[in-house]
């Protein structure tokens, strides 16, 4: 019965989207943090999604549902913004601190997209559940 697999598919997508939401939250929380050097500055993190191929992974446990898998996490390569704050305790010898390279607008868009996709998958799951329950009652008055 292929509808049972839909729970794995939608579940993997919900996992991926909630991880994305989690990363957006940590990016937004660190949007205003500053550091003493550009290397130490917080960099925005984003997950990379890949399709879990059904045919290729059919023999492996956990694979083969055709859902979403996480391929990795990338850090944004944008240069951290240098702010001239000589009084800041973290400031370097020139009086600069380095703000994280999080783009707040991008993160808000990511947040909305992730939450919409999550809701979509919840709907898919509840529809599948209804269909399965109706199928189980087939033939009973």
């Amino acid at each position, binding site marked *: *019965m*292929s*509808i049972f*697999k*839909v729970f794995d*598919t*939608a579940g*993997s*997508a919900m996992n*991926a*989207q909630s991880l*994305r939401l989690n990363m957006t939250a940590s990016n937004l929380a660190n949007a205003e943090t500053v550091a003493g050097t550009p290397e130490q500055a917080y960099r925005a993190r984003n997950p*990379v*999604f*890949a*399709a879990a191929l*059904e*045919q290729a992974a059919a023999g492996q446990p956990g694979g083969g549902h*055709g*859902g*979403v898998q996480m391929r990795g996490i990338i850090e944004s390569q944008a240069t951290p913004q240098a702010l001239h704050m000589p009084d800041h305790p973290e400031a370097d010898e020139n009086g600069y601190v380095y703000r994280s390279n999080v783009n707040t607008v991008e993160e808000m868009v990511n947040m909305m*997209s*992730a939450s*919409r*996709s999550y809701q*979509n*998958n919840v709907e*898919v799951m509840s*529809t*599948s559940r209804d*269909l399965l329950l*109706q*199928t189980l009652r*087939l*033939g009973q*008055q």
Partner: protein
Amino acid sequence: MTLSLDKAFGVSAAALKLRSERHQVLSQNLANADTPDYKARDFDFKSALRAAAGDGKGGGLQLQRTDARHIPAGGSATGPGGAQLQYRVPFNPALDGNTVETQVEQAKFAENAVNYQASLNFLGNRITGLIGAIRGE
């Protein structure tokens, strides 16, 4: 008179099976709505049902394969139940190579769910009729 359950249920059983397969394919599209380079897939329900019902007229021309290593005609991947999967042509292709359009997929998904319920109802009515015939009511 012999009663074949397969014949008694008619095309509804095959339709139900294909509907559940399409449900799975569409749910995969929706799950991968944010996956880069994912191509949305679907299959033609009408020809798949004709092929499953086995009337020989549908499904298009098939190339005869005399060796297991021959590549099947059409070249497209087969779905969970052997239906020929095809790629959807997007209205608005995305920059990241993803061709899933959530609103299109949602519409197809809802349509397929309703049709699944219709097939279920047809099957249920058949079963009720058969039970009535067996009991002699």
